[in-house]
């Protein structure tokens, strides 16, 4: 019998019963309170006492946080020598964090996705020591930046060498290109003259992607690769930054597809989210005899997601972490990348983040917030994203009336605050 219940069975029961409480008329609640505690006043007093304690808890937490900051500042003048190694580490840390923050920064006027949400809670012992069970939230609100992940550090080092992985002779990119050109129709690379702008090259590549032959797609690949190579180290605010990021994302999608020729339905508009279709990878092959290489895709996406802060790359990277495709499965990191892209108005990321919040997967379960992201995604979703509309409809059908109200309030307000991202 034990195995017959879902792990969240009690939570679902609590959801249903709390809805009942919310729908119970006030006079009935007062009568029940009188029945339980002789007088409703007794329960109200209990409420007020808890309110005072909750407020004190918030004050204590603020005080601890202030003391922690003061303590950090006090260390500097008192022990400069002893602090030297700490400073050295801090400089390295800040450099890494700066890279990380820069990578995750949004062009929209919102905070870094990084979501301060940072999950390395064990690195905040001060708060944890005071109230261990709320450490997660305390850390989530703490301003301290998280150190870059090992993968990001590796990425930083990679940047330091100023060499795109595509430039190496032995990279899978080159291997793949060779195989693609070798096995598909001969694919003469369109020459890129000085006059041929990056947007023009990408327009050609997009058109080729819409073609039906493997040769077209091989040519598209070649163009994306060339753009990526030539502009790999362009500054993030450079004139071709976003085009370069798009080219890198397109390349990564080639690596994610990796399937035999003739199965492609890829269009210039890119790939549809496949949350509800795990087999869709085979339906979006770019053509040519391409070996699927999600690890290579993740490397490319990480560069586009961090250096160029490209929202499509951040979303695709989130999917890789969510599914454990080419990287170690990590729902928390996935949620973090989805949040990064979602705040920029990337509708697939908004929907994916919403689903994770509704299901409590990788993030603390929060139906109203999850539904708010799904609402935003649903408004922005195009006809090629039916999965978003399905996910939204399914969630709304199961959500309580109050959750729907809260979600819409969140979503409406977000749209007001982020008109540009919301209009994407």
């Amino acid at each position, binding site marked *: 019998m*034990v195995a017959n219940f879902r792990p969240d069975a009690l939570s679902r029961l609590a959801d249903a019963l*709390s809805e009942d409480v919310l729908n119970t008329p006030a006079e009935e609640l007062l009568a029940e309170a009188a029945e339980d505690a002789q007088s409703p006043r007794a329960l109200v007093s209990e409420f007020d006492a808890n*309110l005072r304690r909750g407020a004190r808890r918030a004050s204590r937490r603020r005080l601890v946080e202030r003391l922690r900051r003061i303590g950090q500042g006090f260390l500097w003048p008192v022990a400069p020598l002893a602090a030297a190694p700490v400073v050295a580490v801090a400089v390295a840390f800040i450099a890494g964090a700066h890279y990380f923050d820069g990578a995750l920064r949004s062009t929209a006027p*919102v905070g870094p996705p990084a979501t301060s949400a940072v999950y390395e809670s064990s690195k905040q012992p001060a708060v944890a020591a005071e109230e261990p069970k709320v450490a997660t939230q305390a850390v989530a609100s703490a301003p301290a930046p998280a150190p870059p992940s090992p993968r990001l550090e590796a990425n930083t080092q990679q940047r330091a060498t100023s060499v795109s992985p595509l430039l190496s002779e032995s990279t899978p990119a080159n291997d793949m290109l060779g195989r693609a050109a070798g096995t598909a129709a001969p694919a003469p690379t369109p020459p890129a003259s000085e006059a041929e702008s990056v947007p023009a090259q990408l327009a050609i590549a997009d058109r080729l992607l819409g073609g039906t032959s493997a040769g077209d797609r091989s040519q598209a690949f070649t163009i994306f690769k060339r753009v990526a190579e030539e502009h790999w180290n362009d500054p993030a605010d450079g004139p071709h930054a976003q085009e370069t990021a798009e080219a890198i994302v397109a390349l990564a999608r080639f690596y994610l597809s990796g399937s035999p020729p003739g199965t492609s339905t890829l269009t210039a508009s890119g790939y549809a989210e496949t949350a509800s279709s795990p087999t869709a990878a085979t339906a979006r092959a770019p053509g040519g005899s391409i070996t699927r290489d999600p690890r290579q895709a993740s490397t490319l996406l990480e560069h586009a997601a961090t250096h160029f802060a490209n929202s499509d790359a951040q979303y695709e990277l989130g999917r890789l972490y969510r599914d454990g495709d080419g990287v170690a499965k990590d729902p*928390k990191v996935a949620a973090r990348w989805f949040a990064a892209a979602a705040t920029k108005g990337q509708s697939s990321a908004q929907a994916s983040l919403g689903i994770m919040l509704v299901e409590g997967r990788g993030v603390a379960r929060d139906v109203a917030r999850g539904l708010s992201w799904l609402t935003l995604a649903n408004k922005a979703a195009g006809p090629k994203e039916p999965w978003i509309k399905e996910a939204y409809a399914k969630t709304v059908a199961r959500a309580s009336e109050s*959750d729907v109200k809260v979600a819409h309030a969140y979503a409406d*307000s*977000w749209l007001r605050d982020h008109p540009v991202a919301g209009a994407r």
Partner: protein
Amino acid sequence: MTTLSIAAEDEPQAARLSRSEVIEAIRTLTEAEKITLLKIAKIYSRTTSFGHDDLFQEAVCRLIGGSRALPREAPFLSVLVGVMRSIAWQWRSEAHESVDELPDPRCAETSAIASIDAVKTVDFFADDPIAQKIVVAMMDGARGEELQHLSGLSKVEYETKRRKIRRRFEKLAD
């Protein structure tokens, strides 16, 4: 293992109420609303190993501390309930999030523990088979008319039965 909390600034949110506004809003709730919140705190705390006082105080703390935004347009009560529910979920064994990723033995173990809790709760209604049936259906996510249909009761009978279930569960949580 901890769950990730998406930072408040990254989420869709209305303009926040200030700290003093939040305190004032909670303080000036009606008696019935305060009782509603306490009852719901009791219900959700039953899904954790902590008391309802702790759960409610933590929700207040997060709202006052600003780590959870309080949208102006949203129904205040609903937001507070949502915060408590979220905290309860967080406090509950957090490996739930990956139960689909079996065969991670840790997940299997957590899942089993959660199921044992559910079994105990269902057993509590053993003297009332119809109530038990409704509780099991609720645990499976059934709602509204679907539940009434499953119970085989008329609308009035069903409402009465559901109220009894809620009252019994509240006492169980005391």
